[in-house]
Structures are given as C-alpha cells and as structure tokens.
C-alpha cells in the first residue's frame, strides 16, 4: 500500500505503508543509532513524535519479548528506508511490520531517510504526518489544523496512573495495592521513590540489579507523599515534551532538596535545573542516538552516551550550589549537573542505555553510594 510523509514546510516523501494503515501526526525527529529500534519504539520520551532512523536497514532482528522499555508503543509514527520482512535472531517473535500493525502504529518505508534527516538538520525539527489514505494536499491541510508539539504536557499523558513497585528479581511491575502478597525480597538494600514523567524499564532494572526496590509514582505526586513513605533516595525519570510545562514537578523537587539524595535522568536533569534557577531552551534538531561524546569536567574522561532529548539546560541561571559537571563535546551543551554539597546529581543522557552504550551505568552505583552515605 502506498503511503506519504508530509512535513509542515510542505515537503512530501513517497513510500509504502508499514504497520497499520491510517494516519499519524507528530514532531518528526531522527535517531542515528544503528540498533535498538524496539527500545526506541517503546521509549515514552518519544511520545508525540514521529521517529525516523538514519540507519537504512531496520527490523533485521525482529521484535522480542524482553527489550520493551514500557508496556506500549510510544512513538506516534515510524519512518524507515527498508524494513526486513522476515526477522533473523534467536529471540525474535515477530517482524517489525506485524508488531506495528498489531499495536495500531502507522509507519512508512521506502523513504529516503537521509534526505529527510538533512532537511531536519537544516530546517530544524518540525511537525509532520504519515498517511496511507490522503493526497499530500489533504494531509498538509489536516496537519495545519492540529496543535504543535510545544505547549503540551506530555509527561501527564505517559505517567503511570497509579503507583507501582519494581523489586529485585521481578520482570514486571507490581501494583502497590497488591504489595502485601509479595514477600519482601531479602536482596532489597534500598528503597527508591521514582517520579514518573515517562520512565524506561531499564532504569528500574538497573536499580533492581543494585538491590533497590523502586516505587514508581505518578508525576503529580506531592513531596509530602514521598516523604511520608520515607524512601532512601528520589529518582527523576526521563520523559517527553517541553520541561517548561512541568512547574508542578519542579515544585515537588524543590521541596525534596535537602531531604533526600536525588538523581535525575534526561528530563530529570532539566527539572532539577529549573529547581536550581536555570531555564531550558529547545535544540534545533535535538540529540538522538547512541554515539554522543560527553566530557566529565572533573576527570577529563569522555564517555560515549545514549541520548534522546530535544531541550537543553541553559546554565546561566544556575544557583544555590548547583554546577555543570558534564558537557557535550559536539556542541558544548549541558549534559549533567552536580551539587557542590548536597547528594544531588543529574545527567542529560541515558545511563540505563537501552538502546546504546552501557558506559555510563556507573551513575546508578553513585546514586546507591549517596543513599548509603545519607543513611549513616
């Protein structure tokens, strides 16, 4: 079946339908990672976005049962050059096309994704729509009636409805109401409260591997509620959208500062930035991929990181002891913050990887050490 991709600026790409028929609309962004499409499709930080991969051969290893980063597909749409009809990998359960179709996700294949990427690089990210039914003119007309990406509180759309727990040894979340049935694992060394603006399961898996039991709260949770449950530390999750929409989470964080060790990832970095006086701005085409070099300003060591963010912290307003600790080598933007005295640190990239390099996993150990110290 024929499909088209139409961008806000009127550019039209022709291709074939992938996944479900119909139409999809969102901010069109590109990711340069060469592997990890299953993780990308299910990463809540892509809510409201249509993702294109710059690597042309997608779906080679199919979709498996383990590499989900949330319980559903989060992207609005998916754009590839070529999709493998039959996957080849020992864990593969179904093909990319079957999976997208089953989950009602509209995609398009056969697109010159390099041409698309170059357009986004030059003009910046923009809204776009995939359609299997309309003419380009109809699709563009429809696109123009829809709201843009900015100004929407996406965190509230992707956050958990009710709190749940993730315990060491578990493979899936346990609703909090049922916690009485679950024997407390002897492996639990720390209890973490996570404010969910769009968490990836691999953050919970990494915490569990270090003996942390994590309670995941909706992003609207109050500081009082968290302090009442008295966790050892607070984790701020990644998530989609414009951080300036999340004043209520910033407030919660302000009230937690000084009480608990805090670690923030991605959107969590931006929220902590706001809590310490900074603001954020939108990047032209964001950082999305598995190859971004980040410099640790303290050691001078460079790490290759997994990234997915469209906004960056402007360090100018930072106050109350918060400092820039990591910068991006390509464009010098802020990639991490560290408090001079308090056990609070944040990173703009993804220590949980999935997809991408696992070089930065040590941040979870650092968080655990902070919790250990705070206990004494």
């Amino acid at each position, binding site marked *: 079946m024929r499909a088209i991709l139409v961008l806000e600026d009127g550019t039209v790409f022709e291709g074939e339908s992938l996944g479900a028929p119909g139409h999809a609309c969102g901010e069109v962004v590109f990711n*340069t990672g060469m592997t990890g499409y299953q993780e990308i499709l299910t990463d809540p930080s892509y809510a409201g976005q249509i993702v294109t991969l710059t690597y042309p051969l997608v779906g080679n290893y199919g979709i498996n049962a383990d590499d989900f980063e949330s319980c559903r597909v989060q992207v609005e749409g998916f754009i590839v050059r070529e999709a493998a009809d039959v996957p080849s990998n020992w864990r593969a359960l179904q093909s990319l096309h079957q999976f997208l179709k089953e989950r009602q996700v509209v995609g398009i294949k056969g697109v010159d994704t390099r041409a698309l990427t170059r357009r986004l690089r030059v003009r910046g990210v923009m809204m776009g729509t995939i359609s299997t039914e309309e003419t380009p003119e109809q699709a563009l007309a429809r696109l123009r009636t829809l709201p843009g990406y900015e100004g929407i509180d996406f965190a509230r759309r992707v956050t958990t409805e009710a709190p749940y727990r993730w315990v060491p040894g578990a493979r899936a979340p346990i609703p909090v109401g049922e916690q009485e049935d679950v024997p407390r694992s002897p492996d639990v060394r720390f209890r973490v409260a996570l404010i969910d603006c769009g968490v990836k399961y691999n953050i919970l898996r990494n915490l569990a591997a270090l003996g942390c039991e994590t309670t995941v709260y909706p992003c609207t949770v109050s500081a009082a509620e968290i302090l009442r449950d008295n966790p050892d530390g607070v984790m701020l999750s990644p998530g989609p959208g414009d951080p300036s929409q999340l004043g209520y989470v910033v407030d919660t964080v302000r009230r937690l500062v000084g009480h608990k060790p805090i670690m923030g990832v991605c959107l969590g970095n931006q929220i902590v930035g706001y809590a310490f006086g900074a603001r954020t701005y939108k990047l032209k085409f964001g950082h999305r991929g598995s*190859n971004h070099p980040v410099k640790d300003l303290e050691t001078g060591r460079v790490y290759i990181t997994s990234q997915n963010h469209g906004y960056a912290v402007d360090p100018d307003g930072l106050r109350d002891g918060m400092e820039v600790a990591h910068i991006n080598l390509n464009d010098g933007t802020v990639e991490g913050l560290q408090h001079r005295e308090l056990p609070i640190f944040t990173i703009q990239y993804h220590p949980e990887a999935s997809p991408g390099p696992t070089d930065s996993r040590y941040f979870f150990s650092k968080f655990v050490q902070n919790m250990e110290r705070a206990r004494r």
Partner: protein
Amino acid sequence: MPRDTTIQKVLLIGSGPIVIGQAAEFDYAGAQACRALREEGISVVLINSNPATIMTDTEMADRVYIEPLNVEFAERVIARERPDGLLPTLGGQTGLNLATQLSDAGILEKYNVRLLGTPLSAIRQAEDREAFRELMRQIGEPVPESWIVTEEWQLEEPAGAGIWPLIVRPAYTLGGTGGGVAHNPDELYEIARKGLALSMRHQVMVERYLVGWKEIEYEVMRDANDTAITVCNMENLDPMGVHTGDSIVVAPSQTLSDKEYQMLRTASLKIIRALGIEGGCNVQLALDPHSFAYYVIEVNPRVSRSSALASKATGYPIARVSAKIATGLHLDEIENAVTRKTLACFEPALDYCVVKIPRWPFDKFVLADRRISTQMKATGEVMAIDRSFEAALMKAIRSLEVGVYGLSNKTVPQMSDIQLEEAIRVPNDERLWAIAEGFRRGMMLEEIHALSNIDPWFLRKLQHLVSLETRLKLNGKAIARMAARLLQDTRESATPATENTGTEHHLIARLLREAKQAGFSDRTIAEFAEVPELQIRALRKRLEIVPIYKMVDTCAAEFEAATPYYYSCYDREDE
C-alpha cells in the same frame, strides 16, 4: 593532554614486501601516519624495504630509507637520525616484529628512543596465547575452553566438562588428519585415541567447537587518558571457521540486536583497557546464534587489515588518529577530519551498508585448493557501499574484476546437485554463486542454512536477488519491446499512449528501478532481455532511473561534512 613536545623526530617502520594478509592497507596506514605526525610539526623518518609504496614517496616523510627491515640496518638509521620516538604499530606484523627485536637488542635504550603508542608489554600480552587467556580470565571475559592432551586419562576433564561439541585436533599431522568433532564422551575417546596414535608427538588439542557461531569484529580506539571508543563493528557473512580475511564481511553488523551489539562492544572496550593499548585495536569475537553466549577469539593490538576496512567503511581515519594518540594527544583533542566541526572522540554512525569480498588468486593459481578455512588465502579485497545489502554486494562482485557481473558465474551451473551441495557446505571462493545457483535449482532456504550455517538474514537477501533475476528474465521480452519502442523515436514522449502499453510501461519501469536499487548491472539486465547493454542504459535514462550520490560523512547526516566522500545509489536525493 596537549601533544608531548619532547617528541621532535619519529621513526616509522613500514610493512615491507607485500604478502598475504599484509598488503596495500599498511601503505595506506603508514601514509596517513606520516601526514598526521607532520601536521603536528614532527619530523618523520621512514624505513621500508618496499619502494613500490606511496609512503616512500619523497613528499610523504622528511627522510626515507629504502633498506632491509632488520635490526642491523634499523640500528644504522637510528644511529644516524637519532629519533626521539619509534612508532611500531602502523607497519603491520613486520613493523611490530622489528620494533620488538630492536627493543630486545637494547638498541632503543642505547640511543634513547622511546616507543610511542601501545607499550610492547601490551603487545606481547595480546599476542602470546597463554598470557592473553590468563588476562581474559582475570577480567572475566570468556575464551573458548581448550585442553592439551598427551595421555588418554587426560580426556577425563574435557569429557566431564559438559561442553559439546568438542573438536579434536591432533598436533603435527598433515592437513589435520585424525581430527574430528565429538558430540559425546564415547565419540571424544574414539576420535582422540585415533588422533593420539596418528600424531607424531602423541598430542591432541581438544577445544570447544565454534563452527557455525557468528563471527563479529570490533575496531576500538583508546587514548592515554583511558577514554575508549568503538569505530565500527563488522559481521562476517561466513560464520566461524573461515579466516576473517577470507570471509565476506558486512559493516555494521546486521543480525545483532542492541543487547548483543552492546554486550560485545562493552567486552571489546574492557579488553582494550585491560591491555592498555594506546591507539587502534581489533577484537574478534564469536557469538552463539542461539543465546547470549560469546567468546573472545583474538585481539590484534595494532592497526590491521580490518582497521583499513573499518576506516574506509566509516570515514574514520584509524591510522591517523592512532598516530596522533601516540604523540600524547587525547581523543577529544583530535579533530574529526571529515566534519571539521566535531572531534575524533565519537562513534561513527553509518547510514548505508558496507560489503567486503575477498579477492583470491585462484584465477592465477588454477591448480590451488579453492577451499578456504582458518588460514588466509586471499591476496586482496574489494569493498562497496550502498543503501541496501543487495546493492552493496552486487557492486562488490563487479569490483572483483573476475569477469563476473552478478550472481551467476561460468562454473557453478556445470555442477551436479551433489557437487553444488558440497560447494555450499564447504567454504570456498565460489560459495556465494553456489548458493544463488542452489536457489535457482529450487533449494529451500532452510536447507542452504543447514548446509552452510550462514545466517538466514543473508540467505534471504541472496534469495531476493535470485527472485528479482527470475522476474527480470520473465519480463525480458517486455523490457526489450519497451527499449525498442522508446528508443526508436527519441521525440516520442516517455509517457505511453494507450492503456495497455501504459500498464506494461509502469510495471517495467518499476521493475527496472527495483533491479537497479538492488544493484543489478545494465549488462546483466541486457543479458536477460537479450538486447545490447547500451539499450538498457538508454532505456533507464529515458525512464529517469539514474544513480545519485550520497556522502560518507561519519555521522549519518547529523552534522555538515567538510571533506566527505561519495557513493552512488538509486535512492532519491542527490547530494
């Protein structure tokens, strides 16, 4: 750290004569290194016994000595030139060996010459089988289990280890006679007894049998500050059992999920750090196609044949960056020479597929054994880039210059079914064409996979090419008709007049575009249509099916490139 300014003059050892496994790629590496060092204001002295190289051109180095690559002559050069440093890791095994000999003979110490880049101790640890296995055990990286057996009772250990299958290799027998694969203790005892009897030294090596496992390579770099990155990973189409120099190789890997890719990447970086290499290094791993199990097979602690391939495949100049690292620079102090905006400290993102095919000299040595295995026989290789695997493969085949323009050659169709199965089962230089012929004769993909152990993903691509070939043959007459009609009168519009010819026109135009995107040459299509090649060329030009050019820019278009190179393809946007 900024560059070490105590280094003013550096001696570079070339790779000497061209031999199998060590050819023009080291000239390429040496020439890159000369430029990289001179950019830093370092005076370069080069010694090489092979004058037929680019690096010995007078403008490459400051001083060039065409002398035998041995200790005696190298000492004379050192005595005369008094260099501050010696860079040993860019001249292949020859350069490395000479540097080791110079160090052992105390000559470097005598003339106060520092070894730059990777320390010799690290090189020894990587190249000595036992020292390497010991290091891998220390850092918890798996190496294939192996036992040396001289007495029958020693078989108890491998027999009880629960590792099957095992391969038994008798020591010092001609062509490995008396060896075999054991799937249980009974077979192990039976084969090993025979092997012990046949071995001159009464010795057999018992090792985990990895044939059929995926062979994956990582090209990694590390600087003195312990920052380490991956330049590229590569997957061998031929599974374990064929030397990587004799394998068809694709970059990046195609059948690995992110979990597998990262698992092996992490292992490779752990190894380069444990060895303490400063510069580039190649890590070869075997991955079980049915689990996350893997083994570290081998490490090349220097710029190698694979690094030259990885450099061209990604645009990342490994030899150049290795030379810069040897002068004390850190990865984040070296410019990415392609983008000129970003730094050498990143991992290239490819937005194309790269295929390498070895070039064997069997056209010159007609009586040679064409079977390939663990000892490299290829004397060269070709590399092709395109947006799809199919097209990259077809381009590479044409680049071999063996008179073959696609997936048919002259010999394979002559084979009986039994001969064909054998040519698919036992790796040899014609296996690719034998597989295509197998599909033509109606063999099932599963059957070919069972015979060859080649991953079904690659086989499916070959099957796709054969099915396209069939469609082209079936439509050969229609293609010829259309060529005749459109080319008869150049003034006639390319849009057809009647509805009937209209449908045919669109179908053929689509088929031709599909065939060109999959890499079929005009020549092959012309054979199927039984028209001259030039007619096909003219026809597709009328249909506006023409190649466009895309960049190799190291970053998948994320940044603007200042000095990229280009490849042709039949995608949409021309850069």
